[in-house]
């Protein structure tokens, strides 16, 4: 608490001007299981991208690139919804 901004340093009304700064958050500690992408099986259908509540699938050019493990909370909806079993899970240590 002592390292947090003092009242005079804050914006009026608690307005947040730094848009989307939740991106800096690491929520990996929430995770019990991590999804692992299996490139050989993947058909880049982007269903995993669409059903992720946490923006944890990084895509580019309409293709799966990688999981953002700082954002993934390990819900494994992606694994459950993958039509070609291209995602498996691993228990976090």
């Amino acid at each position: 608490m002592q390292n947090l901004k003092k009242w005079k340093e804050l914006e009026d009304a608690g307005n947040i001007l730094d848009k989307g700064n939740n991106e800096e958050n690491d929520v990996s500690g929430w995770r019990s299981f991590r999804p692992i992408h299996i490139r050989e099986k993947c058909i880049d259908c982007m269903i995993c991208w669409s059903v992720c509540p946490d923006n944890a699938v990084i895509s580019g050019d309409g293709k799966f690139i990688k999981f953002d493990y700082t954002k993934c909370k390990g819900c494994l909806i992606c694994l459950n919804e993958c039509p070609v079993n291209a995602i498996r899970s691993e228990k976090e240590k």
Partner: protein
Amino acid sequence: MNLKELSNRKARFTGGHTLCPGCGEGIIVRAVLQAINQQVVVGCATSCLEVSTSKFPQTSWKCSFIHNAFENVSATMSGVETAYRVLKRKNKIKDDIKFVAFAGDGGLCDIGLQSFSGALERGHNVLFICLDNEAYQNTGIQRSSATPYGAWTSTTQIGEKHKGKEQFKKDIVKIAVAHEIPYVAQASPSNYLDLVKKVSTAVSINGPSFINILSPCVPGWRYLQMESIHVCRRAVDSCFWPLYEVFVENGVEKWKLNYDPKDKKEPVINFLRMQGRFKHLWNDNKDIVDKIQANIDRKWEELKKRCSV
């Protein structure tokens, strides 16, 4: 529109929020903003979504976002949209901006119903979205008017005398349609592109629009977090949550069914069995299950009739 194209659009809702793992709201809000793809101002009622995405000093929103209180997102966005209209008329603003109001079923069907109705009647150019997770999940799973019949909540408990909620869901879609606004729809994240298409339609229409979206809740409904989409699929395939649109032009309603499982229509018990909130109905209390099934069947037939199927 397909998923590849959608995924190439810039994200305006970031991860790193504190929604529960597997929360339907994260999926839906991402879909809505990807679908709109132009400057947008989001209003949000006090809700899981609000407290989880805008905890000071951090925000998941890359677009403008305003939270005011629980019951007044519709009135708040009425003010934002009106200010925009005046500035536009006075040539003080160049950009075209869309307006979206998110509220849960509590914030829209219950405490916020008056504000919602007022905004629809006045005709503000805002897309209203109900993230219907069927209870006051944010405060610990209390019953709302959108809680389905028979469901356990912390205020409709299971005992000798009472077994869950004893009333059916409020039909918020019909209430919205009664305002004769140009566009009303019901959608589910399990039918993702249908949801995206409905959002695109809604924001392309001039005037108020409303989409009622089923928002699966892991702790409130008590299912495995990986099954958020799957549980919605059961809701849609059992016709507990039919997908349809209502267009109103010159006072004439045009109802359109977007999905008909036909002979694959599932018994509602498949939907109930996935969720701990209906545990007391899995093997016992068949009379309650029958009542739920009869209600679904009646409403489904009525809907098909309206949609001329």
